């Protein structure tokens, strides 16, 4: 029994329908267009993604650079404010201002001088304790105000 010839075994010229070849060619062309479109879409996606990543990276670089610059500016600003405050403190501590305050506030601070200064050469704690005990144990009232430290230059 003779089996009918397969489509592949049949010469193309002897194909029963011309449309068979047409479908084959069309299928090949469709494959190419399909591939082209797929690759195009992939390229678009990849290119777009790369572009977006680039833009995002550049934005991040800008943002980081700006943040760094802002931080540096902030540091410089604090530095300046600190300097201003320090200068103000130094100005307020000038000798003539302190003297003026001493007079205005009636503090009564006096310049250190050799004459009223006694160098305490023995143990200060013992000395103070001795004086305090002397006051406690004595019949009379304890002496008020023991040690006064004077400021240099006043």
């Amino acid at each position, binding site marked *: 029994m003779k089996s009918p010839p397969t489509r592949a075994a049949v010469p193309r010229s002897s194909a029963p329908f011309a449309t068979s070849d047409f479908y084959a060619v069309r299928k090949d062309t469709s494959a190419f267009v399909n591939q082209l479109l797929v690759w195009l879409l992939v390229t678009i996606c990849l290119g777009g993604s790369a572009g977006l990543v680039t833009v995002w990276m550049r934005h991040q670089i800008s943002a980081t*650079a700006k943040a760094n610059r802002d931080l540096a500016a902030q540091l410089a600003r604090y530095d300046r404010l600190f300097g*201003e405050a320090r*200068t103000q403190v130094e100005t307020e501590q000038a000798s003539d201002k302190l003297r003026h305050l001493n007079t205005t506030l009636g503090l009564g601070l006096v310049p250190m001088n*050799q*004459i009223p200064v006694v*160098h305490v050469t023995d143990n200060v704690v013992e000395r103070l304790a001795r004086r305090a005990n002397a006051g406690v144990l004595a019949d009379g009232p304890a002496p008020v105000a023991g040690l006064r430290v004077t400021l240099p230059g006043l």
Partner: protein
Amino acid sequence: MSKGFASSARMAFLGGLLLLCYAALGARLVWLHVVDREALLKPLAKVRPMLIPEAARRGDILDARGARLATSRSEILLGVDPHSLLPRDERKWVELAALIELPEAELRDRFQPRFRRAGARGEEGDDAGEAPVPFAVPAARGGEDEQWPITWVKLREDVSESVYERVRRLDIRGVYGIRHYRRVYPSNELAAHVIGYVNREHQAAAGIEAYADFYLRGQQGWRVGERDGRNRELPQFASREVPRRDGYSVVLSIDSTVQDIVEQELVQLAARFEPRKASIVVSDLDGFVLALANYPSFNLNEFNRVPKAEEARMKNAAVADIYDPGSVFKIVPAAGALEERLVTPQTVLDCTVSRLAHRGRMLSLPAEDHKMGNLRIGEILSHSSNRGAAQLGMMLGEERLERYARAFGFGAKLGFPVGGEVAGILHPHQRWYPIDITRIPMGHSVSSTVLQMHQAMAVIAAGGVLLRPQVIREIRDAANETVYRYGRTEIGRAVSPRTAAQIAAMLVGVTRKGGTALEASIEGFDVAGKTGTSQKFVDGQWSKKHHIASFSGFFPAAQPKVVITVIVDDADHKAPGGVAYGRTVAAPSFKRIGERLIPILDIRAGAAAVPALLVARQGGGAR
């Protein structure tokens, strides 16, 4: 992939269209980046790049205890571009005027838009013009009749950071500030002649400011970047950057407390005697100056307000003016004669003789203020005998006397870094008149600065060594690390330690009973010193009504800690008896300064050391 999708002609068309779009985009990009590149970059290259300078902070000048004598404060030069003002901000102008303490009418006047002709730049004065770099906006150029908008008018130049913050919060368009550093001297007049000042053009003009400017000024930084359409910096496009280097700090040997004591003393002297000038120098035994002050002085923060006629007060008279040293100079022939073994401390000289032969010529000796007799060398100093000093000078001879005078620092600059030091006058002995050998030993026919007199006395205190007077202790970088430390510098040896000790012992007699300056004695301490009173040369002759009173000394005599020199110029009209003697005018000042320095510098006459701050006042109950 489905057949329907692949077979659609529309899809193929769409794909083709997309490709075409891509191709068009690519072509456009190539056009922009290759063909039109130069034409498009040219205007951008002009507008976008910006050079941003970064001002370095000038270093501080510190005293020996770390207190700031000069520092830099950031301030804002506030200005306005009247052409950028918006009507909606007008309601904020009142608040702005109050903030910068400018009358509202004046503020409104400055806010008026103005123009100038192209050829008339600078006619509007300092307060108006183009904005300082980097905010300059170039005006459209045209012919000579072109009107230039005035884009910057100064509102105030010393706005503090805190006030500027509030000004910025007002958000007035067109009002902006330019930051700069301004030199501030927190202690005002303190050590004005030593510190010097920086002028309004930011040029160091005098004093340590000028001398140490190399260390103090730092190095300005800059960066090249780009800006956007709103003139904001685009930090990501910064191409080159040179960081600023803040100036180094200079630590002085000046002690603010000592300096303040000295300046208070000068104020007292001025109130009491109304002298023409006065100077006080205090130094330690290594040649470092602890205090140097002159009267009159000036406020460093207001140096530009000193009237022209009074500019002499800005001169450092202690190093730039010369005086006859007077009897202070007597230590030179005495030390020279002892050093050369021509005399011993026990040698007695007849100080009653009025004429003596020298090199075959009879010379008349100078007169004495009071009657003298036979005096030992120590008594010649303690009684300040002119004839005794003349005889010592004659024993030495011209050549050796000149050599010793120079060895003690007279006749040459000592190398003090500030104040325009002068050398004084000490002629070579070949040019001396015959009579000079009798006058120079008593401090006449020779002129010196206050500092030279001070250093001559310091030679005795330092064991016979002439030290270079110094005022800078250290140079510190911005991180407060010491980069250079100055040390004791010897110029040369004048006399041996033995001779110096002998002279010191003799000078103690000056402040004891029978000496010329009991007023300089300090209880509990041996004070060595020498008074000086010299006539001034007025109207072509030596005046008997104008004197220079001086006292130079040190204590404790055996182990000196501090050398003090007081010079008062022309205090006769208020001095007791109408003559300003060193004894009556300068010596008491020495005593007052010395007494106040004892607790501050912890000077002691042999007691065990205790911490300087642990002092108790008798009046406070510490009995």
